């Protein structure tokens, strides 16, 4: 079973969600339901499964239900109907006490506006999760210091959050989430409030952290570039419905509907597409042809383009241990870069 399984979740906001549920299940759209009953459909039959150790990005515009979805995983919001499994355990079956234990042990969350405690210093903020778990002061300060070091904020531990810049505050948020060493990291538009340079910096830092820690990350964003950069899989939400789930390449190359294609239209494909997705699979016809360059399967097309254009010859794609997987020539490059 996957690390996180969300099965047929419905969430309806309003005074009597139960009465509207049947309508929504029968296929009424968000607008119809709002018109007829005054209820807002937050999520409409969303099912997702997220594998251990992957970064799953949930993307959508504001009002698409993505923040509602992520709050179902740690049950900050209860669904109107459906099931949420984490580690095979149905989260909705947990008693209030079990739920607190579950949140302490399994996951932590990073927030869009950071959600830091303004009355606590940086180190107290980072140690908060451990404080809740009643870890001794000395031990939790030591763990917190390690995390503060890891996000590069040593020297700021005794400052208050209001004394830090936005980027630094979000690094405190990240350190706080990592301090409890959770298996699952929920990031709700974590970088959306930061300016572009710092955002890109933080994305880099997250990718680097993730390559060492191998957490299961659920990342919410409204920024397609961000989701393509971070996600192993991407789910696109529109009006509470899940429109498409797939790898970045699948979403770019086979958008499921007009909504998704209008999204991906403006993306710089060369920056996203990896050599693995572009290449022609290795077969005998390539035998004996001249190979100008050897590229790793995870290199992006943007990195390879100058070589392809410069040499006008084949590039061999290899995996991490050096086994050849396939080839890229100017044909593949031009075919995939042209917008169909």
């Amino acid at each position: 079973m996957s690390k996180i399984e969300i099965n047929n979740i419905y969430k309806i906001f309003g005074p009597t969600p139960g009465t509207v549920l049947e309508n929504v299940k029968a296929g009424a759209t968000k607008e119809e339901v709002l018109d007829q009953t005054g209820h807002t459909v937050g999520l409409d039959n969303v099912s997702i499964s997220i594998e251990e150790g992957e970064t799953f990005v949930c993307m959508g515009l504001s009002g698409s239900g993505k923040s509602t979805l992520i709050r179902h995983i740690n049950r900050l919001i209860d669904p109107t109907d459906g099931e949420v499994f984490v580690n095979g355990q149905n989260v909705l079956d947990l008693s209030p006490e079990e739920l607190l234990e579950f949140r302490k042990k399994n996951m932590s969350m990073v927030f869009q506006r950071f959600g830091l405690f303004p009355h606590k210093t940086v180190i107290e903020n980072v140690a908060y999760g451990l404080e809740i778990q009643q870890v001794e002061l000395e031990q939790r300060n030591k763990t917190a210091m390690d995390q503060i070091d890891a996000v590069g904020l040593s020297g700021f531990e005794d400052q208050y959050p209001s004394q830090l810049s936005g980027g630094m505050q979000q690094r405190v948020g990240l350190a706080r989430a990592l301090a409890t060493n959770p298996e699952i990291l929920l990031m709700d538009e974590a970088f959306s409030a930061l300016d572009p340079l710092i955002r890109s910096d933080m994305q880099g830092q997250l990718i680097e952290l993730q390559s060492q820690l191998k957490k299961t990350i659920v990342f919410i964003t409204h920024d397609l570039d961000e989701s393509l950069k971070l996600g192993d899989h991407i789910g696109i939400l529109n009006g509470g419905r899940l429109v498409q789930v797939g790898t970045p390449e699948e979403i770019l190359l086979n958008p499921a509907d007009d909504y998704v294609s209008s999204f991906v239209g403006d993306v710089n494909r060369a920056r996203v597409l990896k050599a693995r997705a572009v290449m022609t699979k290795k077969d005998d016809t390539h035998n004996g042809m001249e190979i100008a360059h050897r590229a790793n399967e995870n290199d992006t097309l943007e990195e390879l383009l100058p070589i392809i254009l410069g040499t006008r010859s084949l590039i061999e794609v290899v995996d991490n241990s050096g086994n050849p997987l396939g080839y890229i020539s100017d044909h593949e490059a031009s075919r995939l870069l042209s917008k169909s």
Partner: protein
Amino acid sequence: MAPLTDTKIFMKKIPQSVYYAIFTGLFGWLLVVSFNSSKRKPDSVGELFTDLSWLNNWPKWLDTPLMKWINDGWKVFIAEYGLIFDAIGYGLLRGYTELKQIIVQAPWPVVIIAVIAITYFSSGRKVGTTVFVGICTFFIGFLNPRFWDKAIETTTMVVLGIAICVIIGIPIGIAMARNEKVRNAILPILDLMQVIPAFCYLIPGIILFGLGAIPAIISIFIYACPPLIRLTDLGIRLVDKEVIEAAESFGASRRQKLWGVQMPLALPNIMQGINQCTMMALAMVVIASMIGTRGLGDEVLLGLQQLNVGAAIEAGLAIVLLAIVLDRMTQAYGEKIQERNQPVKKK
């Protein structure tokens, strides 16, 4: 979340018409009772339909016997529970007298120095505020030597009143912030406490606790507690939702959330509530002088009765000075917390 929606569904199941029927029934019953209990009613109900003159002036029989009910209830209440109030009154009086004695017997320079020291530390070592408060304290006695001891009596009453407000008011405020139903039940009571004229509860106060400081302290509680309760409730509810979610996402229990996050962040508002409480308590002390409470209000009343404009204004000024001293002391502490709690910068 879930239980709330459940009860809402449950509420919906009782149709509105049932409520209307209950209220109409109650009103009809009240009409019958007022008619039957009235001494000056027509001989028979039938007369009402033949002789329509009762429609001109408000008829004597159309009168809810509320006064009689309250008086009867009051008598039973005193007989049954009077002892409890005696005990409360005695305890409060002991506390009041002892606290007052300590301050009155202390040499006045010591009292001024104590006030200055408290302000200095509670304001976070602000020299300007401290000097100002010191001068105001000095001028209370400087206006008229008699005022010094009376100001101490007044202050003791105010401090005790505020202590009761804090002990009772803050937990009520917390309960209101945590539960919608409790809030809906308590809000009308707060409105009642704030709107009802002070004399309405001063008199029952005398009957329960006798003349003097104790009914004044009880009146202070009734008059000054609502703003503290409201501001505690508001302060807790105004805490940033994302910060609360952050605490919840780490598995904080309700208790951990309240004492670790909500209360510290609501503290500036609660301090503001205590400050408001102080000001209203001082106002009430003056009104309470009408039921024989001693203190600075007593001096104002004396000046008024003797048509001595100078004395009344002098005493009034002393009250203002006392208000400034108490206000600065509580306000300064609130500001100190506020500075530490600056909200997170939003971009």
